[in-house]
């Protein structure tokens, strides 16, 4: 790899008491790719996302973003530094409007200067335009003045995705974005993730919905019991005996 990866996890571990939720994982995410992180329930996928975001400190190892060690940074600084995320269980600002949900998420340095301008009430023209374009892209423009709490489930998922993009991240972490969605919605999600990647955002996707994963992932990393057991293209991972074992169990007759 010639180009520096956007994100590197170097020998990252997280132990909760005696439980080794994540145990010595090395992972590199190359610029502009969609990397899917899969594994059975409890294999440590969400813990990795939380470690990258700084929700809790590492037990060991380093998290490097664009060549900068961010292991000790507080959450908000990592976001302004370029990592945004969605949550497995949606966490919107329910009593704010759809519009405001995106507005408060504009926290990159440039956006902050824009928003500190004259136009307090609707944000600066640039900020407003960004929010409107994002709402348009996620088909939420007609809901702009609704309270987020009043949206339907699918709309809330889209809004959270939109909110994560509002800070203009270099790396987007999607934690099970397809959970609870129907086939049509998954199709739209697939398209949106591709478009976001084409706009230059690197995506780390955690997902159980294998059809989606196999369709859009450039590479897949597989976790089991907090360890990385496989990494490669979708075809390579599907062929790996270790992965089959992790998902289906060991054959009884050898």
């Amino acid at each position, binding site marked *: 790899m010639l180009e520096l990866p956007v994100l590197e996890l170097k020998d990252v571990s997280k132990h909760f008491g005696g439980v080794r939720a994540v145990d010595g994982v090395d992972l590199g995410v190359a610029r502009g790719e969609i990397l899917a992180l899969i594994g059975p329930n409890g294999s440590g996928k969400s813990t990795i996302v939380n470690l990258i975001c700084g929700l809790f400190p590492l037990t060991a190892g380093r998290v490097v973003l664009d060549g900068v060690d961010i292991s000790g940074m507080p959450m908000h600084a990592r*976001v302004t530094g370029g990592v*945004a995320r969605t949550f497995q269980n949606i966490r919107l600002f329910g009593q704010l409007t759809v519009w405001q949900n995106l507005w408060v998420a504009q926290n990159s340095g440039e956006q902050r200067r824009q928003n500190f301008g004259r136009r307090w009430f609707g944000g600066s023209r640039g900020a407003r335009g960004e929010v409107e374009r994002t709402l348009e892209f996620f088909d939420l423009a007609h809901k702009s003045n609704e309270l987020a709490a009043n949206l339907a489930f699918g709309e809330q998922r889209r809004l959270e995705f939109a909110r994560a993009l*509002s800070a203009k991240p270099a790396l987007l972490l999607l934690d099970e974005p397809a959970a609870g969605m129907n086939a049509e919605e998954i199709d739209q999600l697939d398209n949106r993730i591709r478009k976001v990647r084409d706009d230059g955002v690197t995506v780390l996707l955690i997902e159980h919905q294998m059809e989606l994963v196999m369709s859009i992932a450039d590479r897949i990393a597989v976790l089991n019991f907090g360890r990385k057991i496989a990494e490669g293209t979708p075809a390579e991972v599907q062929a790996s005996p270790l992965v089959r074992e992790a998902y289906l169990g060991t054959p009884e007759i050898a």
Partner: protein
Amino acid sequence: MDFYLGLIQIIGVHTLLGLSAYCVLLTGQVSLAQAGFFAIGAYVAGILTVLAQWPLIPALAVAAVVSGAVACAVGFPALRVKGLMLVVATVAFGEAVRLFFFNFTYQIQAGVLHLGPHGAEGFRQIRYFPQHGWSTLDVALFIWTVVALVMAGLWWLDHSRIGAVLRAVGEDELAAQSVGINITAVKVSAMTVGGFIAGIGGGIFAHYTTHIEHAQFGVVLATFAIAYPILGGLSNVFGTLLAAVFIQGFLIEGLRFMGDWRNLLFGGLIVLAMNVRPRGLLDAGTTRALRRLFAPRKERSGA
């Protein structure tokens, strides 16, 4: 007439106190320290006009800045704890301030009079208004001008991005951090603004009562401070005003004939209000309905 003007003054000052708690409450923090900031404002402003012979407005400004600075300093350690622990920490701070003024004596001799704070006896003879020929009406107008200015400032804040950020932190701190908001900075700033407003309120309070003492700034006052925005609702600043008018004007004065029973009614009413309207008297839904009622027809179909 003077009785009603006096009542109007009280309501004005309590509105300021309520607004100071409103700022902090927007970020989801329940602070019982507002009475402490109010006390600091009262003593600082009183000392400046009585002992240093300052004019009122600079004295109020300095009182507000001192209270705000104390709030900022208290905010950093206090806001590391949440929920019930924050309530305990802020009550402790409020009591510490009260006990400080219980012991604080700094007097100078002016003719036959001893001026300045005198420990448990309090701080008497804060006679700026009568000395400068302000009538009760003048004072009431002055208080409400200040209230209007503070409300206008907070209303603007509410409609700017800052207001949305404060509410975002109040709703979900983790989500707020995950979109890049520095929640410590936001919470401490809200506390500082709250302290600033409480300082102005306290400064005015000292001057219209002319006599302040530690016992006025206890937990009861702190409870009132958060009762206004909680009862009034956090959707906008007018809820706090409405609640201050309701509690001070109706419950405290209007029901005076009931004697001590009105306190029971006061508690009961807050419990009732919290059950019937958990988001306050003026909640977002009511505000929207009112806005729709007064909005021009074309907007109605657009929204």
